[in-house]
């Protein structure tokens, strides 16, 4: 290009950031021929600008230095003034002291004079008037002041001082020992903190090796604990130096960790086992929220509980609330009720079956009796002359017709089988009452009739009587009556009494067993 264009460019770009302009300029006009020319032009530019810069800075520097000098001068002046004032004060103080001393000397002279006058005046009215001298506080006699006592006083004084020093030294030793212990503990803990580094390979292997070597050294020293009890300077220094080195290592370790953390922040998740701070914070926030919620829940529950215990709300709710306290008991009650109901049902069932059985029994009995009656009739018609059996039958009859009071003896005599109807009757009182309802009679009449029956051998009467005798309330009687009813009918003879009651009772028993 032409030099004129170069010149115009040169005028335009005269300020400092020349590099870009220069480059563009360079690319604009620079050709292979012009290189050296352009370079020389550029160099001139730079030189000019830098020269101007330097001048500006120099000017500033000069100004600042001027200011500095002025300030220094001011400071010096102030200092000088302060010094001068101090000197003035000092000189005034010495002057005052001197004056004071002079006055004091004068005053002392006066005092001496006065003292002399006072002592000489001899206005010694008894200076001390005491009724009687008092004993010493410790009860001992006063002792003369001799050289011995003086020496003793000195000794005592030194003893007191020594005691005090010893006491203080003991205190300081104790404090020292404690502090040493603390330092040792710190050292151990620091070592343990730093030793896991052996496993994890991190950057700067050199540092870690120094750590290891230090750790090994110190580990060896730890065993020599007795050494620390000495308080000589060398040992003291050792301990403090080792603490210092450990602390330095710990500090560098912590700094490393800090750097890592910051790196992680910048680069993202590099390590798996490093949790980013954000995640950690989020977790903690979540946990805090949870805790808050749980606390609130607990609070509300507590409030509700309080309300229940103290306030009286409307009836429904109070009854509900009251009910809920007895819930457990209610449940139990329910269970027991159900059990009871079941049992009741079972009992009902049993009862029904018993009644049915008793009805059946009654019916069967009726049928059976009718049969027997017919059979007895036949027998009676067949057999008419059995006397010994009659007498036995009479005995039996009398046995059957016995009163209540004689029952026991009768039962003793009577055959054991006859007892069973008693027990049978007891098991089904209801059924017997049903049977015998229709046959009420008075007891007296029973006895009378039975006796008469017994004597007359009129079984029909007896039978009638037995039927009539039966009463619902008297179980025993019923049994008897039943057993009597089992006694063969009028149709049957005494002889049959032997067999029939047996058979009857047997059958009855059997039937009973069937039940």
């Amino acid at each position: 290009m032409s030099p004129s264009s170069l010149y115009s460019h040169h005028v335009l770009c005269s300020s400092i950031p020349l590099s870009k302009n220069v480059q563009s300029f360079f690319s604009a006009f620079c050709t292979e021929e012009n290189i050296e020319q352009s370079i020389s032009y550029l160099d001139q530019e730079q030189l000019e600008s830098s020269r101007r810069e330097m001048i500006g800075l120099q000017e500033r520097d000069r100004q600042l230095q001027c200011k500095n000098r002025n300030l220094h001068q001011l400071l010096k002046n102030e200092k000088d003034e302060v010094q001068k004032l101090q000197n003035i004060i000092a000189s005034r103080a010495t002057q005052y002291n001197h004056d004071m001393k002079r006055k004091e000397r004068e005053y002392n002279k006066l005092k001496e004079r006065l003292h002399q006058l006072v002592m000489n005046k001899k206005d010694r009215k008894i200076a001390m008037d005491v009724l009687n001298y008092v004993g010493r506080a410790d009860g001992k006699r006063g002792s003369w002041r001799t050289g011995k006592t003086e020496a003793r006083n000195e000794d005592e004084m030194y003893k007191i001082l020594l005691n005090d020093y010893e006491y203080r030294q003991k205190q300081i030793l104790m404090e020292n020992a404690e502090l040493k212990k603390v330092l040792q503990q710190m050292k151990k803990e620091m070592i343990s903190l730093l030793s896991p580094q052996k496993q994890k390979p991190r950057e700067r292997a050199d540092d870690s090796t120094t750590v290891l070597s230090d750790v090994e050294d110190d580990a060896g020293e730890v065993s020599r604990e007795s050494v620390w009890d000495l308080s000589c300077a060398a040992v003291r220094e050792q301990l403090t130096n080792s603490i210092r080195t450990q602390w330095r290592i710990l500090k560098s370790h912590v700094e490393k960790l800090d750097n890592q953390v910051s790196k992680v922040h910048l680069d993202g998740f590099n390590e798996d086992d490093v949790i980013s701070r954000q995640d950690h914070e989020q977790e903690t926030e979540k946990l805090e929220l949870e805790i808050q919620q749980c606390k609130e829940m607990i609070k509300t529950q507590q409030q509700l509980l309080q309300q229940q215990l103290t306030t009286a709300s409307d009836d429904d709710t109070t009854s509900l609330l009251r009910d809920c306290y007895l819930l457990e008991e209610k449940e139990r009650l329910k269970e027991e009720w159900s059990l009871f109901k079941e049992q009741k049902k079972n009992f009902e069932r049993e009862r029904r079956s018993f009644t049915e059985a008793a009805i059946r029994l009654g019916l069967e009995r009726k049928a059976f009796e009718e049969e027997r009656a017919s059979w007895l009739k036949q027998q009676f018609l067949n057999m008419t002359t059995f006397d010994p059996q009659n007498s036995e039958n009479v005995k039996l009859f009398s046995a059957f017709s016995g009163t209540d009071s004689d029952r026991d003896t009768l039962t003793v005599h009577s055959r054991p089988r006859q007892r069973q109807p008693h027990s049978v009757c007891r098991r089904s009182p209801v059924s017997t009452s049903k049977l015998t309802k229709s046959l009420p009679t008075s007891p007296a009449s029973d006895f009378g009739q039975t006796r008469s029956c017994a004597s007359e051998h009129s079984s029909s009467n007896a039978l009638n009587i037995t039927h009539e005798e039966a009463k619902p309330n008297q179980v025993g009687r019923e049994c008897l009556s039943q057993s009597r009813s089992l006694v063969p009918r009028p149709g049957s003879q005494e002889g049959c009494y032997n067999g029939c009651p047996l058979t009857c009772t047997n059958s009855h028993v059997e039937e009973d067993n069937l039940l």
Partner: protein
Amino acid sequence: MNFSEVFKLSGLLSKFSPDGKYLASCVQYRLAVREVSTLQILQLYTCLDQIQHIEWSADSLFILCAMYKRGLVQVWSLEQPDWHCKIDEGSAGLVASCWSPDGRHILNTTEFHLRITVWSLCTKSVSYIKYPKACQQGITFTRDGRYMALAERRDCKDYISVFVCSDWQLLRHFEADTQDLVGIEWAPNGCVLAVWDTCLEYKILLYSLDGRLLASYCAYEWSLGVKSVAWSPSSQFLAVGSYDGKVRILNHVTWKMITELAHPTTINNPKIIVYKEAEKNPKLGLGALPFAAPRAAARSLSTTETKYEVASMPVSLQTLKPVTDRANPRIGVGTMAFSPDNYFLATRNDNIPNAVWIWDVQKLRLFVVLEQLAPVRTFQWDPQQTRLAIGTGGGHVYLWSPAGCMSVQVPVEGDFHVLALCWHLSGDPLALLSKDHFCLCFLETQEGPA
């Protein structure tokens, strides 16, 4: 809380006996000894002149009554009421009088501090100590009563003499490196003596019992220096209060400062509790209650009920601007007291006169600030428990403990201005002294069988 009835008193002279059984009080020239539990007068003694100072002997058997105007000291015995003892200093005059720790010697300081006379009640001997220093606290006894340190001044130089109290032998005599010694105090363990210089020079010197200089401490130059000094009960700390409003605590091992406790006018730390005293019933406008007007006008602060309120941060406290052209300005930490269990330190910064600052010694930081409605006149720790009683010259007594604080009005007809407090050695009762009266405050009410 029970208050006893009010008894007459003069000169704020009311003291419990060291064994805690009796209470001595004086009215003008009469000395009354009462039993503490019943407040019945056991003995009544009459002195020759108005009593300015009373002191119990250490074994509670004797009481000395000093009458400075007449230069007389009279000693009374409790066991033998008709025993009498009168010490007349004559024309030498009397400025101060105190017991020795064994309770058998009386040390009288004559006028102009010409000498100290040691009178013995056991023997006829009299000792003289020349050149005692006329300063705030020139005599101090160790807690076990073995040694006495005395500040002396000869040829414009300060000296310290250590005496053995049992036979008054001079044990040590050494020069103190001070310009103008103002006070000396033994540490509670009796092995270190703190010596501090005039307020024109900040200097604290620590001497051992045998006279060696252990350490010297100086916080700054030229400004007004030390105003008050207090040892902690365990002798571990020495608190130095100075005119710049700060307390510096020195430790007993290195005698170097471990912390500076500042008293700022504005407190902004939420960990500190600030209790402000406030009136319970704010005064009504006079127009509202015409019939109550004359009473309301006459009503002073002492009759209104007050209570404490916890103030919210930031709290700004009432400050006094000190007058700069006068000597002994009311600035700086003028009163300090450690609690007996060593846990707390109560201080008062004189340019914030209404506030009591309570510092936690374990943590070496401010714990509680109590701001009253009137300037605090006196505060005392309970000797048994951590409890602080404060009196402001009003009709209330204030109690603070770590559990809380309360303001109790003294139920007395008329005005009762609590000017001084005195705890019993068991911590109950607390004697409240006013100009003309005193009463006892029983803090734990006992329910006796009746």
